[in-house]
């Protein structure tokens, strides 16, 4: 396990370096004049010249990149010139809201996706399966922001339930609709994933043995088949949590949810490049981190998994 973990971490560091090369290229090589970009739209010529000197843009590219990497290692993502605070601080300020939304989204994904997936696999081509697969198709084909507006329009505006913008107290009142919107899109995916995994497991010998010795049908499904499908769920959960923590723009924006995605989106208006690039990097780290956690959880939860 340990050698595997070390190898895995080394690869991750390599990937992080790759990511930093891409963000560096985007921030410093792609724009015609990075200094102007970093100085902000209202900067004077003197400020731009000053920033060009500060950024050391007159030095060789390799030196510039080394410098960039050095600052990253020290968790220096630059300063947001919109908010006048360090980028890392700006991101950390928004993390609680993003984490709440992520937790709520995962809750609804599992609440809706798991039962539908299990019931669909219990009777393939039965009524639940057919309704479930329609739900899956529609769920996967609906843009999250359209779903958000649909929920706001029907649940909040027509029925007068819950809140539809921003966050506040009590939290569940504000969190319910954005979390439901996030969870509904994911639930469709979970249902499909779990159905396939369950159908696979239900073909195994030990299931037939359980059936033969007279275990009730529901118990075969819940007690014998489902636990062996959890690794599929965990993989997807890990990926989702990584992506959710990197900011769910298409839910955060329609609901004005103050997460890191919405902050990065607002930064576009003022071309706050350090803040946007910082959020991209942060998101990539969240995703890579979640992947490692998932791989370790595999081995912890499923005794069949061994890393050598």
């Amino acid at each position, binding site marked *: 396990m340990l050698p595997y973990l070390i190898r895995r971490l080394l690869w991750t560091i390599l990937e992080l370096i790759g990511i930093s090369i891409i963000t560096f290229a985007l921030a410093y090589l792609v724009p015609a004049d990075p200094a102007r970009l970093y100085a902000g739209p209202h900067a004077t010529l003197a400020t731009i010249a000053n920033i060009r000197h500060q950024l050391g843009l007159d030095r060789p590219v390799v030196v510039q990149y080394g410098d960039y990497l050095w600052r990253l290692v020290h968790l220096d993502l630059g300063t947001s010139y919109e908010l006048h605070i360090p980028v890392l601080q700006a991101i950390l300020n928004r993390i609680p809201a993003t984490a709440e939304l992520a937790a709520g989204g995962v809750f609804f994904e599992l609440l809706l996706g798991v039962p539908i997936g299990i019931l669909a696999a219990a009777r393939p081509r039965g009524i639940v399966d057919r309704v479930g697969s329609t739900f899956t198709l529609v769920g996967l084909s609906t*843009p999250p922001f359209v779903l958000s507006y649909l929920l706001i*329009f029907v649940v909040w505006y027509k029925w007068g339930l819950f809140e539809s913008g921003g966050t506040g107290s009590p939290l569940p009142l504000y969190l319910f609709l954005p979390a439901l919107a996030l969870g509904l899109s994911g639930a469709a995916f979970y249902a499909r994933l779990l159905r396939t995994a369950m*159908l696979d497991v239900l073909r195994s010998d030990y299931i037939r043995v359980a*059936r033969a010795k007279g275990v009730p049908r529901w118990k075969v499904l819940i007690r014998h088949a489902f636990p062996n499908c959890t690794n599929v769920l965990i993989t997807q959960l890990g990926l989702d949590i990584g992506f959710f923590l*990197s900011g769910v*723009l298409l839910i955060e924006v329609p609901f004005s949810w103050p997460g890191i995605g919405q902050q990065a989106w607002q930064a576009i208006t003022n071309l706050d490049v350090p803040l946007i690039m910082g959020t991209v990097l942060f998101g*990539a780290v969240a*995703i890579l981190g979640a992947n490692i956690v998932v791989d370790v959880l595999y081995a912890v939860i499923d005794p069949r998994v061994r890393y050598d």
Partner: protein
Amino acid sequence: MDAPVAPRWDREPVEEVAVSRSGQGYWSRVRHRFFRDKGAVVGAVIVLALILMAIFAQRLAPYDPGFEDPNGTTMLGAPLPPSPGHWLGTDANGRDALSRVIFGSQVSLEVGLIGNGVASILGLIMGSLAGYFRGWVDTVISRIIGIFLAFPVYLMALALVAVLTPSITTVIGIIIFVYWTATARIIRGQVFALRERDFVEAARAVGQSELAILVRHIFPHLFSTLAVYTSLGIATTVLFEAGLSYLGVGVPHGTPSWGGMISDNQEALTTAPWLIFSPGVAIMLTVISFNLLGDGLREALDPYKE
């Protein structure tokens, strides 16, 4: 020995195959399977209709999408609800919503087809190189794919738009940047298996070059995979483009696009919901039909289906 038969209760019912169709070619069986699949046919018909709608938008749309009808709003400047004159109503500028939805299909399909087409070709090249040559080529390409997969896609698009000028080309570039990895991973896996097959061995034995084996003998086997994943990929791309345009980082402002319409009219959600939900339905319909088409192709092209 035959494979053990699964107990009745967990076995998927086997579709009745009318007669043994030995003597029929692969393609005629594919056609037969495809046209028997109602979902696939419905998907294909809607996709065809959408493409025709985009091509003939100029003739189909009752108004110019940018035309601001002076009588297109109420006295107070509010959008008009759906009426015989404006089937889907108007927006706050007096523009005809139906015309904008019809013209919006152009952007969605253009971006979906071109972006996904290029991404698929790039994925095909990278994936087959990695799968065929293995070794360090595979390691390098797989790691690059790993890096790209770690980027949060919408944030990445924000970053790209922040440093580039927004245009349809930029959007297509973002799509290629984000989606080539999906095809590459699938193709890599396929080529990995294909290169072990006897016909590859035979081609090598008669002295064919590696490149010729890859292009002439392996690529044809990838056709069905590519067709399926391109169709499913277009569905994803249309969703993605709508999301970008909704966020205001997609096609330039003024070009009619479904995501842009929703973004423009979000304030009118409670007073003029048709302005949000008609482009919303257009997006869903497009994505659903490309998904149905892709799923249908997958079932029909699978040579082991019968």
